[in-house]
């Protein structure tokens, strides 16, 4: 066995090698690095003895010690890498987690179906440059009836039996159409609005009727607006909402505040238009519409010789029922969370 510094270096080399190889984790290796190479480590201790050596030996031993230092460093690094690779290989067993279930999903709140359908309607019309206009729910007779060509004792009032409130002959609006008048009175053409909101009629409650329901009104007034523009708008709207494969049917209709008046139906999504229990001969009525009556334009302060317009009105609850397959209107105002959480 070699004596002196050289011998000590030799012994350290062997023992260091063996200790590094037998280390089983990162922490042990970290410890070895400190105890072998640290400021108070074994190699440093040996190096301190170099001062007592003859100059010639000193250089050789110094070189030897530096080499050992590099070797030890390399062995630790290699061993570290080996251990890491082994740990990675074993991860599938050591850290196995069953991902086939969700223990406590974060519950989200659910938005009301009337909100969701209105959102879709707004998004479709905002692409066409419409803005949203709102009007009061407590209306006066002028805006709700007279300005829309529905004078006292007009038969159309039969279908719009209204709730009156105690003040000033005010009533709960029976449709969103009064917003047409209000908007025309306060804005000049071009006008391009939709007006959503609650409306009220003294109707008995059943699966498809209630005394409070929701509509969305549309109004466009500009130079040279034609029925073909209304037809195109309805098609764009209905097919955006229900799907491009749906067909649209326009039929004659009657409303006091439009002339000509039309009704629009979309082909049934259940039977594809053949006719089934959910539809009327393959069609689902979705809205009433027409060219704004010249007198209604005048009532809104717009000259019917210079401008023309179209208007439409759809039941938001009906659209929601059709789109989301809701079969009872009453569910909308009941707020049973078992219903709300389906949306």
């Amino acid at each position, binding site marked *: 066995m070699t004596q002196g510094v050289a011998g000590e270096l030799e012994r350290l080399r062997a023992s260091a090698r063996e200790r590094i190889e037998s280390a089983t984790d990162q922490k042990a290796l970290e410890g070895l690095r400190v105890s072998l190479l640290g400021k108070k480590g074994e190699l440093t201790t040996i190096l301190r003895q170099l001062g007592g050596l003859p100059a010639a030996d000193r250089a050789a031993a110094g070189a030897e010690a530096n080499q050992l230092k590099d070797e030890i460093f390399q062995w630790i690094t290699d061993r570290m890498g080996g251990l890491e690779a082994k740990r990675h290989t074993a991860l599938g067993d050591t850290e196995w987690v069953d991902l086939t279930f969700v223990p406590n999903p974060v519950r*989200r709140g659910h938005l009301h179906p009337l909100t969701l359908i209105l959102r879709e309607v707004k998004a479709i019309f*905002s692409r066409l440059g419409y803005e949203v206009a709102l009007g009061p729910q*407590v209306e006066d007779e002028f805006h709700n009836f007279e300005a829309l060509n529905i004078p006292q004792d007009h038969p159309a009032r039969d279908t719009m039996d209204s709730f009156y409130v105690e003040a000033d002959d005010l009533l709960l609006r029976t449709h969103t159409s009064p917003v047409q008048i209000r908007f025309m009175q306060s804005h000049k053409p071009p*006008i391009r609005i939709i007006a959503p909101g609650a409306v009220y009629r003294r109707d008995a409650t059943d699966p498809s009727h209630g005394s409070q329901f929701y509509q969305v009104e549309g109004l466009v007034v500009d130079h040279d607006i034609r029925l073909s523009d209304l037809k195109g708008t309805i098609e764009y709207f209905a097919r955006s909402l229900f799907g491009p494969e749906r067909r649209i049917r326009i039929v004659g209709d009657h409303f006091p505040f439009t002339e000509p008046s039309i009704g629009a139906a979309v082909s049934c999504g259940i039977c594809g238009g053949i006719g089934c229990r959910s539809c009327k001969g393959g069609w689902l009525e979705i809205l009433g519409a027409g060219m704004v*009556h010249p007198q209604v334009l005048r009532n809104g302060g717009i000259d019917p010789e210079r401008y023309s317009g179209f208007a439409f009105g759809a039941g938001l609850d009906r659209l929601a029922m059709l789109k989301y397959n809701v079969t009872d209107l009453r569910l909308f105002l009941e*707020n049973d969370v078992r219903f*709300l959480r389906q949306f």
Partner: protein
Amino acid sequence: MLISLNWLKEYVDITADAPTLAERLTLAGNEVERIAQQEVDFDGVVVAEVKSLRPLPGSTKNQIAGVTTGGAAVEVVTGAWNLAVGDRVPYATPGSRLGDRRIETKTFLGVPSAGMLCSAIELGLGEDAAGIMILDPGATPGQDLHALYPRDTILELEIKSNRPDLLCHLGIAREVGAIFNLSVREPKIPKTRSSDAPDLVRIDAPDGCRRFVGRLITGITVAPSPPWMQARLRAAGVRPISNIVDITNYVMLESGQPMHAFDYRRLTGGRIVVRRARDGEELACLDGKTRRLTAHDMVVADTERAQGLAGIIGGAESAVQAATTDIVLEAATWEPRSIRRTARMHGLRTEASSRFEKGLSPALSLPAVERAAALVAELSGGTATRASDVYPVPLTPATIELDADRIERVLGVRVEIADAASILERLRFIVKRAGARLQVQPPAFRLDCSIPEDLVEEIGRVHGYDRVPSTLPGARTPVRDLFERRDADETAREVLAGRELDEAVTSSLVSADGTPPIAMPSAAQAVVKVKNPMAENRDALRRSLLPGLLEALALNARQDQGGARLFELGSVFWKSAVNAVDEPQALALAAHVPAGGADAAVAELRSLQATLATMRDRFAIPATAFKQADFPSENPGVFAGFHPGRTGEVLDDGEPIGIVGEVHPQLLAQLGLPGRAVVAEVLFDRFSAGGGRTPQARPLARFPGVRRDLTVLIRGKIAASEVLQVIRQQGGYTLRDISMVSEYQGPQLEAGARSLSFRLHYQADDRTLTNEEVAAVQQRIIDGLNARFGAEVRS
């Protein structure tokens, strides 16, 4: 409106099948809701003549009828006793079929019966089950009954309210003629007007009656109407009664003009007086009810008493009966408003009133009377002696000008002027062409056309809306602030859904007395009442969203869905001196805490506060402050329904804009909601700063900040907001941010004591703060808190 296809074919030769006809009518604005095959369902039933009748030996119920179908007589046993020798009756021969029933020769008490004689109900031709159906005496024995009663197809149409002229077969025939370009055969109206006899009819109230045509016919015989007329009436849903009554109904279903027949001998004074009823005047009506009338009601009277409620229902006294010999036929045109008011007042809508309410043309009445008189002469004999046509202000036909450009400007499709003229003429408009212009006079039976657009509609719906192209309005779009409010609404909804609240929509109509007074404090105290509610518990408009949400929590708890958390964004209605009713948008939150008592409720309340603060942060409104609600000692006042120790007002710039708190246990008990509940309600526009502010970036700090914690031990009901105020005051400008870390109250502290922990963030823009500097400020804060609250402070 029920339309018989057989009847319709009398006026127009329809070649299309029923579904096509229905489709085209619907497209043109006359919606066909249903196509029904009439329930006439038999085979092998023929006309037989009764030759003899004798009792069935051994039976008191049945008799034997000898009948012939042209050849030798056969014997049939029947249980009916309304037969007479010579009657024509429906005879189901052996081997024939009635619905699912096969008719064979059967033996009764040893006597074979070759088939059977049928009642109307057995044939599906009427409701009469009591006797054998007696056919028209002119029917030929042996004739197949189908020849007399062809199987009919019934169209059920929904006629728009502006077209009462279409509530009849002739009206629909004209539509069919226009749509399919077929000629229409109008019934021949005899022009045999005898001289007017103004003394028969007098109109004393011309404001209620536009025209009254009466015609006196004497020497008639009341009898059943012939089978063809009965069949048509039945097909249209009207029960046959007698020839006279059936004729009035028939003419109405043909021409649209309601009619009435009076027994002339029952009319005192032999005159008809059209007048307003006297207040309190009584009228026994045809439906068996006696009605007290008012001066609003129009009546048809004799010289003494009301004999009919004008345009609605006839009187019982002067009704046509079996013995009636002299009648007055009435066809009048009543003022729609008056009819509407009377029908509403008496809660009585009839076939006649619903037509008059829509406004019939006075032009219909005279032809109707003449048509009916001709039918009376044909079916019940008699002599039409006098007629009276009182028509104070005759209609003046309007002329409307139209040109091809206008049609195209409205419809967006070019319709050649010749085609437009043809459509209008098919619809019975009188059209004069002057080059590219049309001068158009609407038909006298229509009152709904007065402007060019009305004509364009006629052209459009008959030409076909399917021939109108689909375009979108031009590219010029108004530029305004799009969806400003929607952004705030939608942002709020997203935040709330993210905080695990479900969106509710509750009814605006609530009970005035039964609704708990809980609301945000700024809500109007009085509710807006509905004058004509449909239900007692829906007789007012909501002033707060909270009662509806609490009701929904209770409903869900009953459905085994305890712990529901809901929000609603909607209008509330506040009585106001300025606008009568204000409709601010409110946002309300409500959470049910079914278990866990007071502590769980606190946690939920804190969560609600955090939700409100998070949402305002989302609107870029920096800090949301709350103020402890100051309950008046006796009466909770505006805080009614809230927990006196757990309620705070939501502040915006120091001003209350809403409330957050726990619901008072007494109110929960009243609602039947177990456990506890916490709620919040705010004015949404204020809360969202009218749609949210725009965030503004600030330069990032160049020098590091210093964090220090501070725990304050206080006693009694000292609000954290006050503690924070002192910290801020003493902190000076280097104290940039304070957040509350925790609150503790419990066994580790003496009773009534509470510790609040804050984290303070110090920073300066121009230098790195030294520890000494920060320590000095901390000490100043500690001293300040000590002086103000006697608080012990650890830092």
